[in-house]
């Protein structure tokens, strides 16, 4: 694929797009793990929601 004289601008655009998407995915995955860990820790201490207690 020949990107011509402005190849650096095209490659930079796609690299930045990939980086932004990777950061978004990484942040959401990390946040999910953190919230699940916090929930598990609280439940291990016997703290549960009322709806779960009555179930």
């Amino acid at each position, binding site marked *: 694929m020949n990107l011509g004289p402005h190849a650096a601008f095209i490659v930079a*655009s796609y690299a930045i797009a990939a980086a932004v998407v990777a950061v978004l995915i990484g942040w*959401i995955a990390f946040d999910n793990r953190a919230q699940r860990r916090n929930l598990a820790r609280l439940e291990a201490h016997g703290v549960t*929601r009322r709806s779960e207690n009555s179930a």
Partner: protein
Amino acid sequence: MPLIDLANPTRYLQLSGRALPWLIAITAAACVAGLYLTANAPDDYQQGATVKIMFIHVPAAWLGMFGWAMMSAAALGTLVWRHPLADVAAKAAAPIGAAFTFLCLVTGSLWGRPMWGTYWVWDARLTSVLLLFLMYLGVIALWRTVEDPSRAARAAAILTLVGAINLPIIKWSVDWWNTLHQPASVIKMGGPAIYSTILIPLLVMAIAFTLLFMTLHVAAMRNEILRRRVRTLMLMQAQTAPGSGA
């Protein structure tokens, strides 16, 4: 089952947990198809290979605006119906919309330098999109500043609805003012002004970006529901702790 029951946070976690793997697979397939078509798209007769920047710049711009439109609809849900998932949806959409708007600005700059001879001009289109990005940052800051989620939701909803005035300004800025940015060439009266060999990859990339936005949004909403559960449990723990007076 009534439709309103589907919007219950617990039900949402169940349904989205089942849908998310499918959404991820469809999004990945759409991204691969979009990138394949992009790599094989012909050069533009005037812009050469730099037209490939358009395949990410334009969908990013659409999704940046779509994110705010979605937040505005959710803001109505918060203010009018006080729906439990509306402010969760709005809060989860803000960082994703900000990221797509940032991508639009950066790729626009990188496209502008070889085509216009400059990275930036203060014309109406560029300035109104920069304003959209700053408004996203403002809403995110507001969510982080107010500790009580329901109070933060109302303040963010009002800010979001006020900010929605910027959406038609972005869309028609190129018609209302004399701008360096080109006028609309896809969504316009009389149909697209782009030849199909470039239009098809652009539309496939737009579908891929939309699926990516939706998948990330569904996952971010799940995180926000879990965060609120953690907050509720921590408050319960604090109330039942010895010396709390409860």
